[in-house]
Every structure is written in structure tokens, then in C-alpha cells.
């Protein structure tokens, strides 16, 4: 087996009394697509922050390409949680992609011909030629997320970290973004860690699932993890996993009413 892109070793993270997760061991291979699922507050985003070196582990270590993670890396691409960008920000779509490619290097924002060609190429990949000169603050949610994917993959990273990139998007847009990310990681052989509360839009691409709940976790293929018995054990309360026409729905057994964003203790779409 190739050496892992990311190795999380015996990692624990505690905030005061609250244990987010402990003894987490996970090795991620190049090309692997990992979905991180769990309720709000289960430590999904915090896990990404720890990988980015912005959150200190209480215990254990995280190694990226054999080296302990420091504050971010040029070999990582990051898609932050959707947040509207101030429309006054002087950043056009094309500038956002450029920053993803060369924003870290010192000097003036003068692009080489290679860089320009690459930006044009990615504009095509994310179907954004017509957005190139628009301010990012004026883009729709779906347009912005397309560019975020482009920005994250433009430098051909070894690891892509995506934090709920599909939230705030409708189903059709979710599919566009998920397919885009899937295609890009195949082309560049990047591993993907995809944080989400709804696994359905990415179910066909996911190699393994990391399910976080109540300070515990479970790792395995979707078929191994997304099962009534496994999740019942994980949550410590009865949970039903219902499969319907290729979709997976996780429902707390004591749950009388359910909808998309119900609290995890009672049930949740997954």
C-alpha cells in the first residue's frame, strides 16, 4: 500500500469537560474519499481545524505526508463552510482562483503565463467562464461554491478538505458540486475529507465514512457503518437506518416526527 497522505494517530480532542472524540486512528490513502458525518457539535469542523493545525489536539498526532501538521500547507486545498462574501470585497472570481494558485507567494500580484493558463483551465472545469470578471460578493451560493472547488483544486493538492460545501445549495447544485469535486480528485489523485451532515449527495463517491457521535466514532465503508445496529451502538440509543431508492435515512427509533435538520439525538437524514 502507498504511504498515507494523512495519518491521524491516537488523536483526542477535549474542550474542558466535553470530549469531542478520543483515540481516533485514521490513515487516508491518496485518492480516497472520506465522508465525515455526525451531528452538530460532534467535532467535524474541529477535526478539519486540527488537520489544518489551527486546533491543538489534547493527545495524539496528525501527520500530513509523513510530517506533523503545522499551520496549513500548500499541498492542501480547503473549501470553507459556505459564508456570503461581502459584496464590497475587491475580489473577482478570477482573482479568487489566482489566489488559490499563487496567493501564498511574496511579491506583487503579477501572474505568469502558466498561471493565467491554469486559471483559464480551471474556469472551464468549474464552468465559470461567464463569472470570471464578476465580484465574488455578487455570486449566487452555487456559483461561489463552484469557484471554491476550483480554488481548492487549482494547485493540484494532495489533500482536499471540504467543510459542508453543499449546505445552502439546492439538490441540483449539490450534485454539480459533488461531481466536480469527485472528478477533480480523480484527475489529480487527491484524497478528500468531506464534512457533511447529509451523506446522500456523495454516497456514490464515498470510500469510507467517519461517523462521529457523542464522543465516539466509527470508521468503515458506508455499508459497514450506516447500519441500524452499528449506529445504535454508537449513539447509545435505538437508531434506525432506512434505505430507500438509493438514499439513506437515519432515524432515531423513538422519533415521532422527522425532517431534514432534526437534532441528532432524535434522528437525522444521513
Amino acid at each position, binding site marked *: 500500500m502507498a504511504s498515507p497522505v494523512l495519518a491521524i494517530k491516537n488523536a483526542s480532542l477535549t474542550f474542558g469537560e466535553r470530549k469531542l472524540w478520543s483515540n481516533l486512528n485514521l490513515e487516508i490513502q491518496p485518492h480516497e474519499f472520506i465522508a465525515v458525518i455526525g451531528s452538530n457539535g460532534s467535532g467535524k469542523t474541529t477535526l478539519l481545524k486540527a488537520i*489544518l493545525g*489551527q486546533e491543538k489536539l489534547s493527545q495524539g498526532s496528525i501527520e500530513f505526508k509523513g510530517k506533523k501538521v*503545522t*499551520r*496549513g*500547507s*500548500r499541498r*492542501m*486545498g*480547503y473549501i*470553507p463552510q459556505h459564508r456570503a462574501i461581502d459584496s*464590497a*470585497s*475587491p*475580489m*473577482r472570481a478570477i*482573482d*479568487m482562483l489566482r*489566489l*488559490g494558485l*499563487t*496567493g*501564498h*507567494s*511574496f*511579491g*506583487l*500580484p*503579477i501572474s505568469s503565463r502558466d498561471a493565467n493558463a491554469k486559471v483559464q483551465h480551471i474556469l472551464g472545469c468549474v464552468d465559470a467562464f461567464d463569472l470570471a470578471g464578476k*465580484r465574488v460578493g455578487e455570486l449566487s451560493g452555487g456559483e461561489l461554491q463552484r469557484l471554491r472547488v476550483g*480554488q*481548492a483544486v487549482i494547485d493540484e493538492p494532495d489533500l482536499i*478538505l471540504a467543510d459542508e460545501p453543499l449546505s445552502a445549495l439546492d439538490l441540483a447544485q449539490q450534485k454539480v458540486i459533488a461531481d466536480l469535486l469527485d472528478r477533480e480528485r480523480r484527475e489529480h489523485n487527491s484524497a478528500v475529507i468531506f464534512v457533511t451532515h447529509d451523506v446522500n449527495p456523495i454516497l456514490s463517491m464515498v470510500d469510507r465514512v467517519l461517523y462521529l457521535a457523542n464522543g465516539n466514532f466509527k470508521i468503515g465503508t458506508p455499508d459497514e457503518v450506516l447500519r441500524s445496529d452499528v449506529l445504535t451502538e454508537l449513539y447509545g440509543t435505538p437508531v434506525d437506518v432506512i434505505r430507500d431508492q438509493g438514499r439513506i435515512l437515519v432515524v432515531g427509533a423513538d422519533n415521532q416526527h422527522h425532517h431534514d435538520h432534526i437534532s441528532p439525538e432524535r434522528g437525522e437524514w444521513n
Partner: protein
Amino acid sequence: MQFFNFSDYAELIPLVQNSLIAGLLLGLVGGLIGVFVMTRDMSFAVHGISELSFAGAAFALLLGFNVVGGSIIGSLVAAAIIGYLGAKAKDRNSIVAVLMPAGLGLGILALALYQGRAANKFGLLTGQIVAVDNPQLLSLVLICAVVLIGLLIIWRPLTFASLDPEVAAARGVPTRALSIAFMLFLGLAVAASVQIVGALLVLSLLVTPAAAALRVSSSPIATPLLSVAFAVTSVIGGILLALGAGLPISPYVTTISFLIYVACRVIERVKK
């Protein structure tokens, strides 16, 4: 009262040569750093820094030290406090609001105790007419050179960190170090501007031109160039107009700068 008077103009120009050079430099520095002041949402912080810079300069004047040195020390102290305590925009505003009157009050105290020429006192708050002497010009050139060279070196990562801080940090951009460096350059730029336009009107050089440029451009190259053009036009235009009338340059600089901003808003509206 004459606001504009151009008789004997040719003889007056050489007298303000130093002021013109200083104005050109300040326009360049103010226009460039202003773009970052806007994208980092620090307009109010600039005002706070300039008041402490004023206090530093006033105390230097009172104690007979170098005024530029005093104003730099005041600036940097303010920049350090705001940078250290005000990482979040909300905290920053309250810290600036607390610092500003404290600085202004101390400065006024120092000026009240000062026995020297009254024009010196007033100059620190509202700007000077033509009184840029050679040593003062030299210190301005040095300050501006440091800020310009520093800004040009960190330009691109600072842009990334200012516009898209989360992604920049993930990509390994040292956002914290950059914001410290930026505050240092901002402090120096403010100290330099206080010498010419006075503490109360620094915003017209460090914020208004960039705010105007951002109204009409979102290109990362055109915006700073426009901002510099606006800032230089305001200062040089202000000095040249003030010259004939023998009034302080500040009202002229601020008025030109304001009119440019209004014009840019109109252009923006028309374009849409």
C-alpha cells in the same frame, strides 16, 4: 477672504518644493495602504492610530524631542495595541473608541503646556501649509520607503490574507505575521501623514482615495493604481491650491479627496 489666489504663483512654487515631494510620497503610500485598510475593514483603526500619533508628536514638541520620532512612537504603540487586542472587528472598534479620546486628550494637554510657536501646535491636528524642512523631508522619505518596500514584498499574501483569511491560513499563509507587519506599516504611514495633513484628517489620505477606487474597480491591479492616483491628486492639488490663499492645505486636500469619492459613487451608479 480669498480662497484662491494665483498672483505671484511662479515665485511661490519653489518654496513648496519640499511639500510637493512629501505630498507625492504620502499620496503613493496612502493610496496603496488604503486598499488594505479597506479590505481589512480598518478605517476606524486608522483614526485611532492617528490620534495616538498626534499625542506622541505633541509630547515630543513639548519636551523638545524630534516630532516625527514622537509621532512614530505614538503610532506604533496604538498599532500594537489595536493589533494585539483587536483581532476581531467588533473588539477592534471598541478598543479604538477607547484609545482615541485618551490619545487626543493627552495630545491636547501637551499642546496646552507647550510655549512655542502656535502654528506648530495647530499643524499637528490640522496640517501644515508649507513648513516641510529638509530634515523633516528626509525622515518622510525614509518612512515612506520602508512602508513602500515592505508593502510591495508582502503584497500578494497580504491580499490573500485580507480577502480570504480562512483559505489563506489553510494554504500556509502566515496570516498572523502578516497582520503584525501590516499594522507596523500602517503605523508608519499614519505617522508620516500626520506631519502633512494633521491627525484629524489622516483618513482623507489613507481611506477616502481607496474607498473611491473600490467604488469603480474590483481589479487587484487597477484598484491600487486608481487609489494612488486619487490620493496624489488630492495632496498635490491641495498643496497647490492652498499656496495662493495662504490657508492650511487640509481643507483643500480633504475637499478634493471627498469630491473624487462622490464622483466615483456617481460613476458606479451610472455604470449599473
